[in-house]
């Protein structure tokens, strides 16, 4: 048994080394750096809380960046999940060619993260781009997508909603695993389709809704390619999401300490929201076969 103990660690070794060198130490280092001023040239200077006080009292860019980040996450995640669930619910009927539809809807998820698609998006929504041409064809006037603050952020939201495929595939798999006899029982009790969806289907889906919610939220808070390529943070920093701000502070201006402080604020927000999700999940997530419900 002693040999067994040793053996487990032998196979675990790559992970343990990676965990310590590339995750644990950097994690603590960035916390330390967030209390310093560090430009990569001289060694870090301890400055106490001054990075954080500057962030929260004097930095207007941070204020703007934080508010657009929250706006972005709280609009994109619910929209994307609702859309993914809606399409999955339709596909869950006895649809012919379900595999073709599923594949077609999944294609954008495969490509969506690529620079090519961000570049395409930048063209699609340009003043003379495809979207405005289509709008003109339908008799609408052209929209200034990148000049208007709300519209510019919305183009990034649209790009991420366009990639609803992986959330949809997860929803669909969960929908297909629901016991059909529950629907029959609901029908016998006289429940209509809408009632059945809200009182049978939705509660049984809460575990995957929870999973998708947390994963998509963590991802949305780290959105970088969209604002970097499509809108370049503009207009007037209305799409200047926090990851872009961190990138520019750290790798353009080499303010490593200040950038670490912003990263830690972003991390704290994500962590608090994740914990809230986990804590509240006891109240709304239903695990079949579990006693609490």
């Amino acid at each position, binding site marked *: 048994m002693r040999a067994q103990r040793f053996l487990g660690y032998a*196979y675990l070794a790559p992970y343990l080394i990676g965990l310590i060198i590339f995750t644990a130490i950097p994690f603590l280092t960035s916390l330390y750096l967030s209390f310093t001023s560090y430009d990569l040239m001289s060694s870090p200077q301890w400055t106490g809380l001054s990075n954080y006080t500057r962030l929260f009292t004097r930095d207007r860019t941070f204020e703007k960046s934080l508010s657009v980040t929250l706006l972005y996450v709280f609009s994109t995640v619910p929209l994307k999940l609702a859309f993914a669930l809606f399409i999955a619910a339709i596909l869950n009927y006895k649809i012919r060619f379900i595999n073709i539809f599923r*594949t077609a809807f999944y294609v954008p998820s495969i490509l969506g993260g690529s620079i090519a698609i961000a570049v395409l998006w930048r063209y699609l929504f340009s003043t003379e781009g495809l979207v405005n041409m289509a709008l003109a064809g339908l008799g609408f006037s052209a929209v200034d997508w990148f000049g208007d603050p709300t519209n510019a952020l919305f183009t990034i939201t649209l790009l991420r909603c366009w990639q609803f495929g992986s959330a949809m595939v997860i929803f669909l798999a969960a929908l297909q695993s629901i016991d059909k006899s529950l629907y029959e029982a609901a029908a016998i009790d006289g429940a209509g389709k809408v009632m059945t969806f809200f009182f049978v289907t939705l509660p049984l889906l809460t575990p995957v809704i929870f999973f998708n919610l947390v994963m998509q939220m963590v991802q949305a808070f780290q959105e970088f390619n969209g604002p970097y390529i499509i809108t370049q943070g503009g207009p007037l920093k209305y799409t200047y999401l926090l990851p872009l701000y961190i990138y520019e502070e750290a790798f353009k201006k080499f303010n490593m300490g200040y950038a670490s402080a912003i990263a830690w604020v972003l991390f704290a927000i994500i962590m608090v929201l994740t914990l809230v999700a986990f804590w509240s999940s006891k109240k709304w997530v239903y695990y079949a076969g579990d006693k609490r419900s």
Partner: protein
Amino acid sequence: MTDISLAKTSARTLDEAAAARRARMHLMSSVIRYALLFAVGFLMLYPLIWLVGASFKTNSEIFSGAGFLPQSPTVEGYVQGWQTSTPYTFGRFFWNSFLIILPKVIGTAISCTMVAYAFARFDFPFKKILFGSVIAVLLLPNVVTRIPQYILFRDLGWLDSFLPLWVPSALAGDAFFVFMLVQFLRSLPTDMEEAARVDGANSLQTLVFIVVPMLGPALVSVCLFQFMWTMNDFLGPLIYISSVDKYPVSLALKLSIDTTEAFEWNRILAMSVLTITPALVVFFVAQRYFIEGISAGGRKG
């Protein structure tokens, strides 16, 4: 007598009417369903279809109509886009992408298999805590470790090389894959492995000859996802790669929108088509693995 039969017929007609109504409703709702699916599918895929068409258009035609078919198809965009404004052609950038992807995928597959094997088949002290750390790493936003990692790689002299992109993955840094393989391995029976052990195979032999073949489909999913993510990765190369001769396609594409002054969109769109082609081909050849990988991850999570 007649009364009863009359009542019967009227009941039957009522039934038939209800059935007909139900059938009509059913037909209506499935028409709506298909119409919706087609509309959504068309809206979603049209930009991609259009992209392919537009890459064969001239630069002026791109801005003149929303149609898919080019009026006078030309490969000018491809020819000029391939040349780029740098001393290198796009062929070089594809080769660089390949050089990043191949070691990274191999390293990921080997290290994640080992780690998953440890978690699924061995007992060791602190196993629960360590497995908890996999979930923690999975949820940990990269943004918080990126800066110290950069400093570490700078101190090691690894900047402007592919090492910062390879090494963390070769040390099972992508927790998602570890998690996926552990879940998959736990669902497999252990009798084959026990039989091998009885026959005198050691744990490494068991891993290589019994477990790896059984892990087959899950490992294919891991490799495909890693391929796709690395192909699409932009921030990693952006931070670590600074010389143009080492650029992967994602950076080269970004460079081409920065350097073509008047936005030669036909070139940019042509190169966009080329950069998404490998991912698309791999996806269509092996889509089963993607869909299964994604759904398994979600169900188990």
